[in-house]
Every structure is written in structure tokens, then in C-alpha cells.
């Protein structure tokens, strides 16, 4: 009975260790830290085709992560995809004519949105919309176009 | 069949027409028993007659197939779990093995039922435990673990634990089996002394005729699922039943044959290698 206290301490250590492991998994091994703590502002972009873009996908500029995809919607009148992007507050000075394109990381990797700065002096503000967008490349369409052109050229 | 001159209130345990089977084997087939308050009642019989089973039935750990078992007027088999537990707090049971909790030392074993059932302060528990251990002569062994005790000591500790909550009745399951003469003597004396000092009611299940007869006020002899005979030790000594005589005197042959049933010896030998 007298080493009850030591026992309790050891068990307490064990539980703490378990939670520490869980904390490491959450913070270091997963993307929880990547987006949960950063504040940002929302802007939207319309695309004809977003391909395999998913919510939480990265938004990058010159390869640097500046935000993430917050939501994906569909406009029933124009039949376009409406993607809401969250740009982190530290990147406030994006020109208003910045363009957004959907790219694929690597040959078969996941899709992300790449921004390219324009030359406007005014900056993007919350709620604005990207004027220039480029849809995702769909492999089948590319191949189809290639075959079509090859057939034309052959004639 | 039962004595008529005892008042019914004196009967603590009343067993009527008890039938119980284990698998296809019928262990009790219409047993009637009365255990009287303040007495040491012995239940004797050869090994395998279900004496331990009887104690478990009285304690409510098993349910009879037919018949009733009443402890202080309550039908044990029909009690709710809560009421049964209330009743068990007033019954002590000494298992053949002692059934001490192997991860607790002697002191904590005796303190176990007190701690479980009361909220007494630790200092009072200590007094109670030491008192019970003193009664069985093992106050000095309170720091030992059950694995360090001899069989006789383990039973004495178990006895101290059984009386820890001051029960009104104690059931002893084969208390003398496998004991050397000294610890046997100690146990015989303890059971007798505790019964009178604490005005307990005791049920002793045993097949050790001499020791049991020495302390029992009344004896039931069981065989083949029935009560063969009952009475005071002196009365049983004069029993008409040859079977009881064989059992009480430990004769090797009699109504209970020495040989397990088998084909005639000569025939078996002549059968050669066939069986």
C-alpha cells in the first residue's frame, strides 16, 4: 500500500506519454498545424472544370503556399465551378488581376491552385473574384485534341 | 423424521426436498436438512457426494432444480441479487483452498471484506483485523503473502477473514483435509471455540469422522444424493445402518465394496490381451 503514490506517478507518466504521442501525430505528422491556426481572407474563382481539385488543397504562388481551398460550389446558371480560396493574412498584397490556374503536382499527384501575379496597382480584397482563371487539364481532352490534330495534319 | 422438540425458530437453514443435478449426474435427490442456531452441524459423506455443492446451494451460488433452501426464512434461490448479497454478508464461508486473494498480504486479506462493506477509518479497521488475527493466532504473520503460508495457516487466515464481518453463520468446506495432525488439532479447536465464543452457527462439511464427531452437535450422513442417517455423534455410533457403521468406522469393505464394479477376476484374466 505504501508505494501507491509511486504507482500513481508512473501511471500518470504513461498517460501523459500517450497523449504526447497523440499530440505529435496531430501536430508534426498531420496537416492539422498547417491550416488550423492561420487566419485568412476569402476570395473566389470560377473555373470551367476543376478536375480532381479537393477542399483543403494548397494554394501556392511561385511554389510557396499562400492559402488553401476552402470550398467548392457549382453555379447553376453559368454551369461553372465556384471555388472559394482562403488566402493567409500575411499575403495581403496580391494584385487585383492575379490569375488562378489548377495544376497537378507531378505527373499523377494531387491538384492544387497556382496564382500568378498581374500588374494592377490595386490589391485583392476579401470577397473579390479572380478575373482570369485556367481550368484543370483533363488528360483525355488533351489526348483527344492531339489525335484530332494528328489526323488533320495527316490529310 | 426431524426432531419435534426443537422450536422452528431455532432453525437457521432449512432444506426441503432438494434436487440438484450436474449435467446428467443427479447429485441430490430429495434432501431434507435442518441447521439449528448455535450448533455445529456436520454434513458427512464419502468424497463426491456433493457436500461442497450443498454449501454453494446454501450460499446462493447455485440454484436448486427443485425444492427449497431457506436461510432465516428467506428462500435463497428467489432473492434478488442485492438481498442475496446482504444475506451473504452475514454468512462466512471457509473454502477448502482458503481462497485467499493472492495479490494481497494476510492483513489486507482479512481487511478486504471490512473495506469493501464499511467506511470505517483505517485505524479502526486495523484494530478489527488484529483482533481477528489474534483469535486465530496469526497476528504475527500479518505481513506475509498467501504464498508464504502453510496450508493450515492459510486456512486460519481464511477463517479470520470469514469472521471479519461478525457473521451469524460460518460454512466450513473440508476444513481438515490434507492437514498434519497439529494443524488439524488447531483447526478443530478453533472451530469449536469460535462457535461458542461468537455464538455462531456452523456447518462443517467433512469426511474426517473422528475430528468432526469431536466438535459436531449434530451430524447428517449423505450418500447417493440422500440423507442416509442423522443424529448426534453418539446416536450415529449406534446406527442400525450397516452403511453408516462402515463409514463411521472406516472399514475397507462392507455395503460400499472395496472393488470398483468389474467382471469376475478369473474371467478378466482369461480374456488375455483383449481388453
Amino acid at each position, binding site marked *: 500500500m505504501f508505494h501507491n503514490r509511486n504507482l500513481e506517478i508512473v501511471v500518470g507518466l504513461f498517460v501523459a506519454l500517450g497523449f504526447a504521442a497523440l499530440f505529435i501525430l496531430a501536430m508534426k505528422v498531420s*496537416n492539422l498545424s498547417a491550416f488550423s491556426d492561420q487566419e485568412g481572407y476569402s476570395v473566389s474563382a470560377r473555373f470551367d472544370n476543376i478536375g480532381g481539385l479537393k477542399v483543403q488543397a494548397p494554394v501556392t504562388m511561385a511554389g510557396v503556399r499562400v492559402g488553401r481551398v476552402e470550398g467548392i460550389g457549382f453555379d447553376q446558371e453559368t454551369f461553372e465551378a465556384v471555388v472559394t480560396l482562403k488566402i493567409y493574412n500575411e499575403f495581403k498584397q496580391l494584385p487585383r488581376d492575379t490569375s488562378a490556374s489548377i495544376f497537378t503536382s507531378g505527373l499523377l499527384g494531387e491538384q492544387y491552385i497556382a496564382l500568378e501575379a498581374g500588374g494592377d496597382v490595386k490589391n485583392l480584397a476579401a470577397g473579390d473574384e479572380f478575373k482570369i482563371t485556367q481550368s484543370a487539364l483533363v488528360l483525355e481532352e488533351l489526348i483527344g485534341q492531339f489525335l484530332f490534330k494528328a489526323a488533320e495534319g495527316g490529310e | 423424521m426431524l426432531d419435534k422438540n426443537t422450536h422452528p425458530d431455532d432453525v437457521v437453514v432449512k432444506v426441503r426436498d432438494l434436487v440438484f443435478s450436474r449435467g446428467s449426474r443427479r447429485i441430490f435427490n430429495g434432501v431434507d436438512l435442518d441447521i439449528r442456531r448455535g450448533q455445529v452441524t456436520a454434513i458427512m459423506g464419502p468424497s463426491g457426494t456433493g457436500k461442497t455443492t450443498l454449501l454453494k446451494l446454501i450460499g446462493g451460488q447455485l440454484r436448486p432444480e427443485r425444492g427449497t433452501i431457506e436461510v432465516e426464512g428467506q428462500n435463497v434461490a428467489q432473492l434478488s441479487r442485492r438481498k442475496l448479497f446482504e444475506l451473504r454478508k452475514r454468512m462466512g464461508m471457509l473454502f477448502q483452498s482458503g481462497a485467499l486473494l493472492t495479490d494481497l498480504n494476510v492483513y489486507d486479506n482479512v481487511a478486504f471484506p471490512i473495506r469493501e462493506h464499511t467506511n470505517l477509518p483505517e485505524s479502526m479497521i486495523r484494530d478489527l483485523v488484529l483482533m481477528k488475527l489474534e483469535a486465530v493466532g496469526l497476528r504475527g504473520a500479518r505481513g506475509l503473502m498467501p504464498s508464504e503460508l502453510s496450508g493450515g495457516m492459510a486456512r486460519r487466515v481464511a477463517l479470520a477473514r470469514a469472521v471479519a464481518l461478525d457473521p451469524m453463520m460460518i460454512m466450513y468446506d473440508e476444513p481438515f483435509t490434507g492437514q498434519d495432525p497439529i494443524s488439524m488439532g488447531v483447526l478443530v479447536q478453533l472451530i469449536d471455540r469460535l462457535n461458542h465464543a461468537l455464538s455462531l452457527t456452523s456447518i462443517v462439511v467433512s469426511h474426517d469422522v473422528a475430528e468432526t464427531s469431536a466438535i459436531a452437535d449434530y451430524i447428517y450422513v449423505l450418500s447417493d444424493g440422500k440423507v442416509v442417517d442423522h443424529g448426534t455423534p453418539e446416536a450415529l455410533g449406534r446406527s442400525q445402518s450397516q452403511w453408516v457403521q462402515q463409514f463411521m468406522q472406516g472399514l475397507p469393505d462392507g455395503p460400499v465394496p472395496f472393488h470398483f464394479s468389474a467382471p469376475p477376476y478369473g474371467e478378466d484374466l482369461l480374456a488375455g490381451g483383449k481388453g
Partner: protein
Amino acid sequence: MMDALAKLGRGALDFFERLGRGHLFLMYVLAGSPPLLLRLRLWTQQMYSVGVLSLLIVAVAGLFVGMVLGLQGYNTLVDFGSEESLGVMVALSLVQELGPVLAAVLFAARAGTSLTAEIGLMKTTEQLSGMEMMAVDPLQRVIAPRFWASFVSVPLLAAIFSAVGVFGGYFVGVGLLGVDDGAFWSQIQSRVDFHEDVMNGVIKSVVFGFVAAWIALFEGYDAVPTSEGVARATTRTVVHTSIAVLGLDFVLTALMFD
């Protein structure tokens, strides 16, 4: 022919009877648990023997599994020139599958067997019966604390297994094979989702902990009270827990996969 049928029938009946007893057992344990909340001491004691004593084997196993994953993953990924994804592979395998499954199986082998043997021996030596005769419910006093201690310990052990494993993979991949340090972690962080991957692993290990505790304790409680019976029950604990955990892993993965 009829004999074989009868044998099959008896086997099926026995199986369902045992299954029923197992569920009743679980019900009684759960019903007997509330008073336990007031007796944390019983709990911590079991947390020690069930959790703390399993810590070493789980951590060491996790380290080695992570290191092996690092080596094997590197050999495969380097052919595609994508050895930066090594961390992702190691982390996902550990967090989703290997951590919960192996921690539960190791738990069954280390703590489950000793629980089964302990309960089985308590039954054999009439300690459980003795408690009942002292008006103490063994399901409440003996089984329930062990059950909840196991239930809590397994997810913690699984988390420790996964975390140590990731560092094992890091050690081999970055330390020995020269994968880029930053790429290793950033790839993990961009590809492992907390809710989808980490939490699903935690849910799995919670389920496995429940099942492992249940099987180990029921096998002990239901053991034939002889030394042979306890030995068999101990074996069954490992076999049944392993099968149950692997089978449930498939079911849970299928449910979480959408």
C-alpha cells in the same frame, strides 16, 4: 453421416452459447462499472500492470516496424524518384493500420494473456467464488477495473507505437539513407490529414482496445478451472484477439473508406 451432422450442430450450439455468455459477461461488467469511478485507486493499479508494463515492448516494436518501413519504402520509392514521399508512406501505414493493429496484438500477447491467466487462476483457486461469498461482486471488483484500464491503455499504446514508428522511419530514411529532412516532414504534413487519417486510426484503436479487453477477461472468467483450462484460455486470448482485431480492421477500414 448423422454423427457428423450432430457434431456440427453441437459445435454451432456451443459456439452460440459461448457468444451469448460473452455478451452477458460484457453487460454485467458495464453495468457494474459506475461505482468504479469512485475508486480510482483500483484503476490506477491496473493501468500500471496493463499499460505501463506493456509500454516497453510496444515502443521497441514500434521503433523497429518504423525502421523496416523506412528501409523497404525507400527501396521501392527510389526507383520512381519519389523518395521524398517516404515519410508519407511510413506515417500513413503506421497511423492508419500498423499502429492500432500491432499495438492491440502486442497488448493481447503481453497484457491480455496475463489478465486471462490471472482471472483464470483466481477462478481455479476459488478466489472469485470466495469474493462472491463475501458479498463482493468479482465482476465489479476484479473484472471492471481491468476492463477499463485495458480499454484506456490500448489507444494510448497505439499512439505511442505510431509516433515512435514515425521517428524510426525518420531515423532510417533521413539519418541513414539521406532523404531530405525538410521534404520528409513537409510531405507528411501536406498529405496526412488529421481527421481522415489520424482520427480514424484512433477510432480503430479504441475499438480494438475494447475488444482486446473483453476477450482477455472473458476467456479468463470462462476458463475451465484447471491448470489445463487456464493454459488453453490463455492461448485462446491471443488467437481470438488477433483474429478479431484483424477482421475488425478490415470492417472498419471498409467503413471509413469512402
